[in-house]
């Protein structure tokens, strides 16, 4: 193993440890169940889902749940996952663990700067960074595929940093829930 790989591994471990510590401290206790309304049928079923239950597919569409967050953003020409995105990856890894038939595409993207084929490589490396963290969290590699679109699928088309930062991303796409 070369020096750069070691640095990468150490930073991944550091991120994971940090994330674990943060999680045990910050996760709020499960809320007390609200008294049931008197109406026989509850119109908002999703309200009764615990947003921290990362095994529950309903949370994929629940804006209160971390599972509804599917974008991970990166710095220019970098592919290391910033600490604030680790909880999103942990939540999705937990979902994959709990749902072995679920399948996920990690779409890697880059901003327009620099050459297109290099950016294709960069998009894949970003996807692989997220994949590595998912696997470290116990998700099976067989559930996840990385595909890079480089700079070919921007979400924003102006040449400005506010646009570029939205394009440097990995999108989590479920192909089977």
């Amino acid at each position: 193993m070369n020096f750069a790989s070691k640095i990468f591994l150490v930073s991944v471990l550091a991120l994971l440890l940090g994330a674990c510590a943060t999680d045990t401290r910050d996760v709020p206790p499960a809320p007390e169940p609200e008294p049931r309304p008197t109406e026989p049928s509850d119109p908002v079923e999703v309200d009764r889902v615990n947003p921290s239950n990362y095994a529950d597919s309903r949370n994929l569409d629940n804006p209160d749940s971390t599972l509804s967050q599917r974008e991970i953003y990166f710095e220019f020409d970098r592919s290391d996952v910033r600490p604030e995105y680790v909880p999103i990856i942990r939540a999705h890894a937990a979902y994959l663990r709990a749902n072995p038939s679920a399948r996920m595409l990690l779409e890697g993207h880059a901003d327009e700067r620099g050459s297109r084929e290099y950016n294709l490589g960069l998009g894949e490396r970003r996807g692989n960074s997220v994949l590595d963290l998912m696997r470290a969290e116990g998700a099976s590699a067989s559930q996840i595929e990385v595909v890079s679109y480089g700079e070919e699928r921007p979400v924003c088309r102006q040449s400005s940093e506010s646009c570029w930062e939205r394009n440097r991303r990995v999108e989590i796409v479920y192909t089977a829930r």
Partner: protein
Amino acid sequence: MYLNVKSFLNLFTTASLILLLLAGGARAQLQIEIVDGVEGALPIAVVPFDFGSAEMQPETPVHEVIAADLQRSGLFDPLPVTDMIDQPSRPPEVKLGTWRLLKVDYVAMGRWIPGGDGLSGEIEYHLVAVHSGRTLFSRAIAAGPGAFRLRAHQIADAIFEELTGAPGAFASRIAYVKVTDAGTDAEQFELIVADSDGHNPQTIVRHSEPIMSPTWGPEGRRLAYVSFATGRSNVVIQDIYTGQRDIIADGKGINGAPAFSPDGELLAMSLSRSGNSEIWVRTLASGRMEQLTEHWAIDTEPAWSRDGRNIFFTSDRAGRPQIYRVRRNGTNIERVTFEGDYNSRVSVDPYSGLLAMVHGGQANFRIAVLDRESERLRVLSPGRMDESPSFAPNGRMVLYAAREGERGVLAAVSVDGRFRQRLVLTEGDVREPAWSPLIQ
């Protein structure tokens, strides 16, 4: 040599001459605008060719195509036809005194010699030097229906070579990717092949998924490119005449950055089937695959040296993307670029071996040319997002992609940086130009 260098001392800045307004069909075509011109271009008259009462008149006047080519090179200043006092078609008819008064140094002319069938025949063409009165050449070239534009480009190449000492590159094509309705559900990617002057654009393939990285085979008939038609990147080779498509690489991960070897028998690519992007070479006849690099870095954008013994490529193994070189057998990897934070996407000049690349940092990405012998890096383009350099087959110009607002445009700059032109599409967003070899 490359004409008299002293006569091109100063730049016209923002001359913005519209050179070619390509008329015709309903399709959007390329317009060509001169952005920065060269002062002191050679005065030449291209006289309307005498087609007499020939049954088969050319689809476009031959002299117009020739004059536009010469002007587009930045090295010639053709006299408008309306300023011509007479219209010779053979050297004995050239009245030297008249052309001297018009301050024209050279007169090109020609005529149609019909063949037996009334359709095909020959174009006879001549070049006369006005000061000496000497006929520099008199030649003939076979022509027929549908071939007049190509023949005109070849005549322009002959004039260019006679007067500059360097081969012309007008009888060539360009391939590029055009995007329409970007960012909408109707988004379409098209791979287009056009003549070097932007005329006659033909869609080679069209898809709603991205198309990337077109590159020519050395025979000018095959295009290799990256297709996302399956949702994943694949490398495809397509024959532009028969339309036959062969999928060359569709392994796990990235299949990208194709580059034909100079003999056309091998295809270098960047593939990530082994875990991350590495340079591979496929022998096209046998399908044999060889992996040339093995490194955790992104290794991509291979480009062959002229002798086919080495491959230049982009790698970020030192932290940022730089150009490296590896032997054909995968040994002796050495770093080539040291100036600047970001050097990538190298293109090798087929004529002299200069390297063009994307050169930049956080703020600007420009086209630069590196002379490996003098180790001199020259920045050629003024943009902020310039990319995809591609040398003309005679090595005199570099075609590249630039951004204007939210759309891509194509531009070409002379290797000395003195002359620049923009190829403007009337609609759509164009990118990734690739200049073909000469059409024989």
